[in-house]
C-alpha cells in the first residue's frame, strides 16, 4: 500500500489548490449543518416537551391545542379525576390552559402571530425544567406575563418591564423571562389563565387540559375514562404522541434541509473532482513510476480515493467547526401548520454530525472516483514518457 504520508504531502505541496477546495467544501458542509442543526433543535423541542406520564385533553376531532377548545366545566371535572400526580407540596399536577393567537409586532416593525397561553400554577411543573431566568414569575390576576428569551429579544415591549400590547383590551406587563428545557413552551407568552379569559372574552372555555398521571396504571385509567365517556366528547392524548403528531411542522424544514444538503453535496462533489483531476494530471509521471516500482492498480486507486476523502474530510471538519459557535443561535419563524411564532434553537447533535459525515464521504468518494479511475487506467510506459 502506498503510505498515507504520500497523499498528505501532495496536498501540502499544492496548498493553494488544497486550501481553496477545503474552504469551498467547508462552506457547503457548514451551510447544510446549520439547517440540520435547526431541524434537530425543532424536533428536540417537540421530543422533550412530552413526559411519558403526561396527558393532554383536547376536543375530540381537533389535532392541536390551537384548534381544540371545550367548556371549562368539563375541564373542572377532569381536574377532579382520580390518579393525578401531586408535587412535593401536595398540589395536583393538572392545569387548564387557554390559548390565544394574536398579532405581535417585532422590534424591526414586522409582524408575526404569537401564542399567548393562559396558564395555571401547575402548568410550570408540567413542563420540563421550567425556570425563571430574568425577573420574577407572574402574579395571578394582575395582567402580568412572562416570555421566552427569543420573544424578549425580538418583540416590541417584550422586555422585562415592558408592555406587550395586542389591543386595547389585551395587554400584559412583562415581569420575567423563562426557559423550559428547550421545549415547545419556549415559543410562547405565558399569562394567567384568568387574565387571558377576561381579555379575550372567552370565559368558561379552555383550549386544553394538561395532566400528569401518578403512575402507569392511573395513566391508562384516566385515558380510558376520558376517551370512552360519551359525556366528555374529548380525547386524552399522551403528550409524547401529541408532540409526535406536531412533527408535521418540522417536516417542511427537514425536507428543505435535505434538498439543500443533497444539491450542495453534488456541487461540492464536482469541485472535489476538479481538484482531483488536476492532481492526477500533474502527477502522471509519478503514477507511472509507482506502477513501475510494483504498486498495483488497486494501490493507486485506494491512494487517490483516500486523498480525495482526506481532502473532503478536512473541508467537512472545518465546516463543522464553523457551526460550533452557533450553539447559542436561536431563530424565530412561523410554524407552517398553525401560523404561529416558533423559536428554534440550533442544536449540535448527532443529526448535524451525521449530515457532515455523509456529505463528506459522498463528496470524497464520488468526487475522487473518476480521477482515481483515470489514474489507474494510465499506461505505465506512456505515463513515464509524459512530460
Amino acid at each position, binding site marked *: 500500500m502506498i503510505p498515507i504520508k504520500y497523499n498528505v504531502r501532495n496536498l501540502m505541496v499544492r496548498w*493553494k*489548490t488544497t486550501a*481553496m*477546495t477545503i474552504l*469551498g*467544501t467547508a*462552506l*457547503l458542509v457548514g*451551510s447544510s449543518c*446549520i*439547517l440540520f442543526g*435547526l431541524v434537530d433543535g425543532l424536533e428536540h423541542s417537540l421530543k422533550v416537551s412530552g413526559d411519558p406520564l403526561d396527558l393532554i385533553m383536547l*376536543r*375530540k*376531532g*381537533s*389535532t392541536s391545542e390551537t*384548534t381544540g*377548545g371545550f*367548556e371549562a366545566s368539563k375541564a373542572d371535572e377532569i381536574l377532579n379525576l382520580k390518579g393525578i400526580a401531586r408535587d412535593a407540596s401536595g398540589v395536583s399536577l393538572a392545569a387548564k390552559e387557554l390559548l390565544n*393567537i*394574536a*398579532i405581535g409586532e*417585532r422590534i424591526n416593525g*414586522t*409582524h*408575526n*402571530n404569537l401564542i399567548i397561553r393562559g396558564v395555571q400554577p401547575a402548568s410550570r411543573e408540567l413542563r420540563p425544567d421550567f425556570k425563571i431566568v430574568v425577573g420574577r414569575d407572574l402574579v395571578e390576576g394582575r395582567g402580568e406575563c412572562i416570555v421566552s428569551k427569543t420573544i424578549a429579544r*425580538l418583540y416590541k415591549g417584550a422586555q422585562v418591564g415592558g408592555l406587550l400590547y*395586542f*389591543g*386595547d383590551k*389585551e395587554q400584559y406587563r412583562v415581569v420575567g423571562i423563562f426557559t423550559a428545557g428547550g421545549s415547545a413552551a419556549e415559543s410562547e407568552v405565558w399569562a394567567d389563565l384568568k387574565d387571558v379569559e377576561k381579555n*379575550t*372574552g372567552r370565559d368558561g*372555555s379552555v383550549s386544553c387540559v394538561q395532566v400528569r398521571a401518578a403512575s402507569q396504571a392511573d395513566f391508562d385509567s384516566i385515558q380510558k375514562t376520558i376517551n370512552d365517556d360519551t*359525556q366528555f*366528547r374529548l380525547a386524552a392524548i399522551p403528550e409524547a404522541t401529541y408532540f409526535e403528531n406536531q412533527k408535521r411542522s418540522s*417536516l*417542511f424544514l427537514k425536507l*428543505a434541509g435535505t*434538498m*439543500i444538503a443533497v*444539491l*450542495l453535496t*453534488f*456541487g*461540492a462533489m*464536482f*469541485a472535489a473532482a*476538479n481538484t482531483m*483531476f*488536476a492532481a492526477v494530471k500533474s502527477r502522471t509521471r509519478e503514477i507511472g513510476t509507482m506502477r513501475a516500482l510494483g504498486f498495483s492498480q488497486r494501490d493507486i486507486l485506494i491512494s487517490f480515493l483516500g486523498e480525495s476523502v482526506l481532502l473532503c474530510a478536512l473541508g467537512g471538519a472545518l465546516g463543522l467547526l464553523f457551526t460550533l459557535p452557533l450553539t447559542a443561535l436561536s*431563530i*424565530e*419563524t*412561523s410554524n407552517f*401548520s398553525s*401560523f404561529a411564532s416558533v423559536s428554534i434553537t440550533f442544536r449540535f447533535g448527532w443529526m448535524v454530525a451525521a449530515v457532515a459525515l455523509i456529505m463528506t464521504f459522498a463528496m470524497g468518494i464520488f468526487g475522487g472516483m473518476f480521477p482515481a479511475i483515470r489514474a489507474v487506467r494510465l499506461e505505465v510506459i506512456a505515463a513515464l514518457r509524459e*512530460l
Partner: protein
Amino acid sequence: MKFFTYIIRNARRNPVRSLLTIASTGICMFLMMILISFFTLRNDVAASLRIYNRIVVMNANGFAGMLPVGRVREIAQVEGVKHVTPFQWFGGKFHDQVMPFAQFSVDADNIFNILDEFTVPPAQLADFKANKDGAVIGRRLASDWNLKVGDPLPLKGDLYPADMNLTVRAIYDGEVNRNLRMCLFHYDYLDEALKRVTMSSASGGSLATSSSRVSGNAGMIFIKCANAEVMTGACKKIDEMYRNSEYPTRTQTEEAFGKMFGEMMGDLKNAIYGVGVAVVVSLLFVTGNAMAMAMRERTSEVAVLKAIGFNKGLVLFLVLTEAILVAGLGGVIGTLGCKFFCDVVDIGRYSGGFLALFYVPWNIALFGLAVSLFIGFASGFLPAIFAANSSVVDGLRKVV
C-alpha cells in the same frame, strides 16, 4: 469579438474541468433560485394582486379573533365598496390529512365578483350557487386529488366541531401565479352547522366555546373596491367604524395582507439568505480554483502570447472572459433551468399543502444570472491579474 473563438477553444480545452465547473455552478444556482423564490414569491404574488383593488378585514387581534358576520352588510354600505363576502378559514381534514389545502366558506353569490380573475363555467357556477352543500375548487386541487364535478368532498372539522359534507359543483381556473388550490363553499352551510352544535350543547353536546368559533363569525371579510383611489379611504373608514366596538378591526389591502405572511418567516429568511451567501462564496473558491489551475497549465502559452505582442489588458480580458463564460454558462443552466423546471413540474402538488403554487419569478432568475456572472468575474480576477503580470522570460523558460 475576433478573440471569441480563441476563448471558446480555451474553455473547451479541458472539457472535463469546464463541465465540472459548469455543473457545480449550475447546481448551486438552481438551489439558490428555489431558496430565494420561496421567500420572495409571496411578495411577487401579492404585488400582482394590486390591480384587483381588493381589501381584507380581520379582527385587530389576529386570525383567532371574532368578526361578526353582520358587518358584511354594514361594510357593503361603505363608499367605494363594490362587493363583499365573508371569508372564513375552515381548516378541515380531508381523508384524515390535516390541512391538506385551503378551505374558505364564502358568500357564493359574490365570491366570483370579487375574485374576478378566475374563470368558472357559467353553468357550473349557477349549479354551485343553487346547492347549499356545493363547493367550488381550483383546477390544480382537482387534479391533485383527481376530483371531478359531482364528486363528494367530505371535510372533517378540526378547528370547528362540525363536518362539511360537500359536493364539488364547479372548478375554477386562472393564471399560474394564482392560487388554484382553494376550496370555496357556502358560508351559510357552515354557519347553520355551527348553530346546531351551539344549540345542542345545552343538552350536553360538544361546543366550540371560544367566541370566534361559534356561529355568526365571518372570520375575515373580503372586499372588492370600485377603484384603486378609494382603497386607502375604505380601509380607514372601516377601522374607524369599529374602533370602539367589542371587536376592533385591522383592514388592509390584499397586497399588504399577503406580505404579512412573508413577514412571519422572520429569522428563517435571514438564515436561508445566509446559506445563499455562503454558497456564493464557496462557488468563488470552486470556480476560482478551476480557473487558477487552468492558467497554471497555460503559463508558457500566456508568455508566448505576450511575446508576440499581446498587451496586458488583452491578456486580462481573455482570461476574465473565459471565467465569465464558464460561470455564466453554469448560471444560465442553473437559473433558467430551475425556472423552466418549476414551470413544467408543479412543485405545489408535492408539498403536501405547504405551497399552493411555486414558480421562479423572472426578476429572481435574472438576479441569479447576474450573480453567476459576478462569480465568473470575481473568480477570474486574480488568475487574470497573475497571467497579465507574469514575466515573459520566466513563462517561456518554464517546463510544465
